[in-house]
């Protein structure tokens, strides 16, 4: 108790401060909660505005289209989410998608086996992820930006090389079903159905990723590595393996997205994934995951991907020039990142309030 030196006046002053701070405390708590729901609100607002502005927006057919169009970005965003959670970035997923699609289409053309083609596409994606992870972690590079940028270039080149600069026509029927099929037993779309099979795939993958992030020790380690890499090392978390694992998953999911893309076009095109990495990254950020790592959920990634898809669809329906879609996406990204910054500020306000109120 030698700590109790002549700082006496601090004690009598405390009660009024504490009273004021509890109101501020509540306000901040609410602001932080609202911030977490922000992206979902943006999505609901978009949907509300578009359903008023356009007659067809909420039709089964159009909703089905939006879901189908968002599927590829959803799958890529789920992989990107894990990477971003570890403070990383995977710029190569678009090129990986192209390469996987080309490999899958070539195997289908030459071997005629659906199983082999699917395995080949998924394996190609995973292999790219392994290479990304090994170069980043074992090469002790300061940031994954460079190795995955290099991979973007290399994988695009390899895809073009393998495909001789041409689209390879044809895809296994099962892949076509996954890419373009509709489920007829969900009511609303008549005999053909409106609910895309691709969305079922997205839901399945989203559940798996949720299991990893919320249920498994591996998922906890992903958050820990993103939250404080140095502390993760000191607490004995296998940081190198965790980092590598997220790039492998991101690659594997790029392979899965390649199957969806192949199915949509009944072909493997060496440019089919071009720029898809930007949508994937944008989706994660727009959805509310923190670019600084350690914060974000599957719901964030999916919400972000849907915001992008709904925005594009809406602008299309309203007959607005496609160029505006990109500008709008850019604006939403800035808003999302700014929200993340504001959240950080609010948190530090919250902390000092906690200290003042002495709880």
């Amino acid at each position: 108790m030698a700590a109790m030196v002549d700082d006496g006046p601090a004690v009598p002053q405390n009660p009024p401060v504490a009273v004021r701070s509890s109101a501020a405390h509540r306000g901040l708590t609410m602001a932080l909660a609202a911030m977490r729901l922000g992206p979902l609100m943006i999505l609901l607002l978009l949907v509300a505005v578009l359903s008023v502005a356009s007659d067809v927006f909420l039709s089964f057919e159009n909703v089905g289209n939006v879901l189908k169009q968002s599927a590829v970005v959803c799958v890529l965003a789920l992989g990107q989410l894990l990477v971003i959670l570890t403070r990383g970035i995977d710029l190569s997923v678009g090129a990986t998608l192209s390469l996987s699609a080309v490999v899958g289409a070539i195997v289908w053309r030459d071997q005629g086996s659906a199983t082999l083609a699917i395995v080949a596409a998924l394996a190609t994606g995973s292999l790219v992820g392994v290479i990304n992870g090994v170069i980043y972690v074992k090469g002790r590079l300061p940031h994954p930006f460079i190795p995955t940028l290099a991979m973007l270039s290399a994988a695009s080149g390899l895809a073009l090389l393998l495909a001789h600069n041409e689209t390879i026509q044809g895809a296994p029927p099962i892949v076509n079903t996954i890419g373009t099929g509709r489920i007829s037993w969900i009511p609303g779309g008549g005999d053909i159905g409106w609910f895309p099979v691709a969305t079922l795939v997205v839901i399945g993958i989203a559940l798996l990723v949720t299991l990893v992030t919320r249920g498994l020790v591996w998922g906890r380690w992903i958050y820990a590595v993103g939250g404080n890499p140095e502390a993760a090392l000191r607490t004995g978390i296998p940081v190198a393996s965790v980092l590598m694992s997220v790039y492998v998953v991101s690659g594997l999911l790029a392979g899965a997205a390649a199957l969806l893309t192949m199915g949509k076009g009944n072909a493997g095109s060496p440019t089919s994934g071009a720029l898809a990495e930007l949508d994937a990254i944008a989706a994660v950020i727009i959805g509310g995951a923190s670019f600084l790592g350690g914060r974000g959920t599957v719901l964030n990634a999916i919400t972000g991907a849907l915001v992008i898809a709904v925005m594009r669809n809406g602008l299309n329906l309203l007959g607005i020039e496609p160029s505006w879609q990109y500008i709008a996406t850019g604006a939403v990204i800035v808003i999302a990142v700014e929200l993340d910054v504001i959240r950080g500020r609010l948190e530090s306000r919250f902390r000092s309030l906690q200290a003042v109120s002495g709880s």
Partner: protein
Amino acid sequence: MTAPSSAVLQVREACKRFDAVVALDGVSLDVDAGEVLALLGDNGAGKSTLIKAISGVHHLDSGTILLDGMDITAANAMTARALGIETVYQDLALFDNLKPAANFFAGRELAGPTWLPRGLRFMQRRTMADRTRELLDRLQVNLPDLDAEVALMSGGQRQAVAVARAVAFSSKLVILDEPTAALGLRESGRVLDLVRRLKDDGVAVILISHSMDHVMAVADRAVVMRRGRTVGETVPTAENHAQIVAWIVGATGGRAV
């Protein structure tokens, strides 16, 4: 030197140099169970190097470190933790994005089934949360909300989480590096209470602090380091204050220990 038999930790003739700089120059030190040893000294005196050697982050060039008589000189950080040495670093090493329970069990999550590789096991969230609550209760650490991320806690609460984590898993020795440096009066008081409770539980504590008030409040013994050597040892009391400060700044020759 103190009798080796009762000491939990024994450091003998520890030497460590970084290129031309001699960080530790034959340091010997004992800490008993239930004893709080204050490690004092100016910046660069070698305190940090010494505790990093004990916690397995650095390896000594020569000398030995014994924990309960067992040679742990070559142990790495993981092994040292597994053997019951916990270190609370100045930066706390907390995961701001995680809740207290997740911070407690980081790297040693309770999960099963055990035949799966560690990373693929399912976390036992409920058990971890319950254990965390029990422990915080036992240590009388009051956190407003165990469901809140650590990022939302005040400096004192964060410090309490870090110290409590060390307490939870240390069976033998807790090393605290400047645990009150960033804290206000009341928050410092709470951390010092935790240190006393550790002592009551029979854990050995090494406390590094620049605050003589805090050292006098909790430490049983103070060892002063200067230029990689121990230059003085005494019971930290108000009467000895001047002597300790003199050892720290090197004003008197001091008596070698």
